[in-house]
């Protein structure tokens, strides 16, 4: 009898009887895995996040992230990392050393930079503007979220989902509202994964067939731009350096993200001489960062954190942030076309959202549906990449004012 009692105590069933909520969270974890594996929604992130949710909600396993207050000692003192590991286990050790310090999102941005080619943007610089308009979802949902009762910091974290950029959303949320990290990260990555659904939907809602047939190459022939780039390699090397310095003067709080992005891009563009660095940044470093980011962000989603009305607010608000961002880009194009002889395809506005490169691919497919010869991919990439800069800048603004 005694042995059976001890055996029972070893298991997690008593915990489950006390509080069955984790079972619901296990279901949420399995759904995320399903979306990542079967539906192929951003599998590189949703699979680790989903598994992290499961790990965190296995009762008695001690893999869930504890709230920040647990490690505060008051008077600006905190438990040290060794004590965190000792007290709360390896997941909290990873979370508090890699995520809560704000380290991994900039590290991932370094890898993203090493995989980014600013070429399409440099060849169509004007189109960058639409990457600005497509941040509209961020600031308008911020307004609505505050009206709906979110605190400004929470609202800022929610709104940044409209930037359609995972690391940016996570970085902003770590600083502003770490208790919402799980749902916001998941909403961000899920909607990014849903770009092939959201963009066509918003485009159909707002654009005429005639607009979608605007052929950018023909427009280029009709109204050729003056700039020819004679030495693209030199331009690509100088661009991240100068850009990084100038943006930093205006929005210094965006430097941890943008600075690392541009550093990654620089070592890539230098080429053979720094190949070891760009290979490492975009390979093992980024991949390892992705694993630990996903698992620990997922592990923040314990049942008491996730099963909250705010989660619904985040899911709904996140969608509108996304949708409004797409519309923002489209309507700036429409406005531009009213005053310019050289017309722009509104799809290029829609991709200002970022979600590189999927948004551009989706936009290209839409264009081809209306005109099988109308390849807009390279043009979309211009606004698409500038949308990444746009949301990092927006994040910097939010952090400056709300952080």
């Amino acid at each position: 009898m005694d042995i059976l009692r001890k055996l029972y105590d070893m298991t997690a069933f008593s915990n489950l009887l006390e509080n069955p909520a984790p079972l619901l969270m296990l279901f949420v974890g399995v759904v995320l895995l399903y979306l990542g594996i079967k539906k192929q929604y951003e599998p590189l992130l949703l699979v680790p996040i989903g598994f992290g949710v499961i790990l965190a909600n296995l009762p008695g396993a001690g893999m869930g992230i504890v709230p920040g207050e647990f490690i505060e000692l008051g008077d600006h003192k905190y438990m040290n990392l060794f004590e965190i590991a000792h007290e709360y286990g390896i997941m909290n050790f990873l979370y508090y050393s890699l995520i809560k310090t704000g380290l991994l999102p900039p590290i991932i941005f370094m890898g993203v930079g090493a995989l980014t080619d600013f070429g399409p943007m440099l060849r169509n610089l004007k189109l960058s503007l639409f990457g600005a308009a497509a941040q509209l979802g961020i600031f308008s949902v911020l307004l609505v979220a505050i009206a709906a009762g979110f605190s400004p910091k929470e609202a800022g974290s929610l709104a940044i989902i409209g930037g359609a950029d995972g690391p940016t959303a996570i970085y902003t949320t770590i600083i502003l509202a770490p208790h919402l990290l799980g749902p916001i990260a998941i909403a961000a990555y899920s909607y990014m994964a849903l770009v092939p659904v959201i963009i066509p939907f918003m485009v159909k809602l707002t654009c005429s067939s005639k607009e979608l047939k605007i052929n950018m190459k023909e427009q280029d022939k009709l109204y050729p731009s003056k700039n020819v780039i004679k030495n693209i390699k030199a331009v690509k090397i100088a661009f991240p350096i100068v850009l990084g310095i100038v943006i930093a003067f205006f929005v210094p709080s965006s430097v941890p993200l943008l600075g690392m992005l541009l550093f990654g891009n620089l070592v890539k563009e230098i080429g053979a001489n720094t190949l070891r660095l760009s290979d490492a940044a975009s390979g093992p470093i980024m991949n390892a960062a992705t694993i630990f980011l996903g698992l620990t962000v997922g592990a923040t989603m314990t049942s008491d954190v996730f099963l909250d009305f705010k989660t619904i607010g985040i899911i709904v608000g996140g969608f509108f942030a996304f949708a409004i961002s797409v519309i923002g880009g489209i309507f700036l194009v429409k406005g531009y076309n009213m005053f310019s002889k050289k017309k722009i395809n509104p799809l290029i506005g829609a991709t200002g959202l970022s979600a590189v490169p999927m948004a551009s691919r989706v936009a290209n497919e839409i264009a081809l549906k209306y005109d099988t010869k109308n390849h807009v991919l390279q043009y979309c990439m211009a606004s698409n990449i500038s949308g990444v800069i746009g949301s990092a800048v927006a994040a910097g603004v939010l952090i400056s004012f709300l952080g």
Partner: protein
Amino acid sequence: MSENFELALQLLGIGMGTVFIILFLVILIGNTIIKFVNRFIPEAQKVIRQNVTSVLGITSPEKMAAIVSAVQIVTGGKGKVTSINKE
């Protein structure tokens, strides 16, 4: 709440304003760099690379060239050999 709402309204202005300013700057910087490079360093220079191949014990440039050209031909010039590790 109403104070927060005002803050949000301000941020809508400041935020979108900043984003537009920055992306105007992106255009400006991009164009300036392009013009500068076009004028002062219009031609790409030959880069003297630190040669990895000698470390590999690939003694003849012909062999190395064979590898690289194979990769180039087959990938239509889009592939590159990042590393060939000798055991």
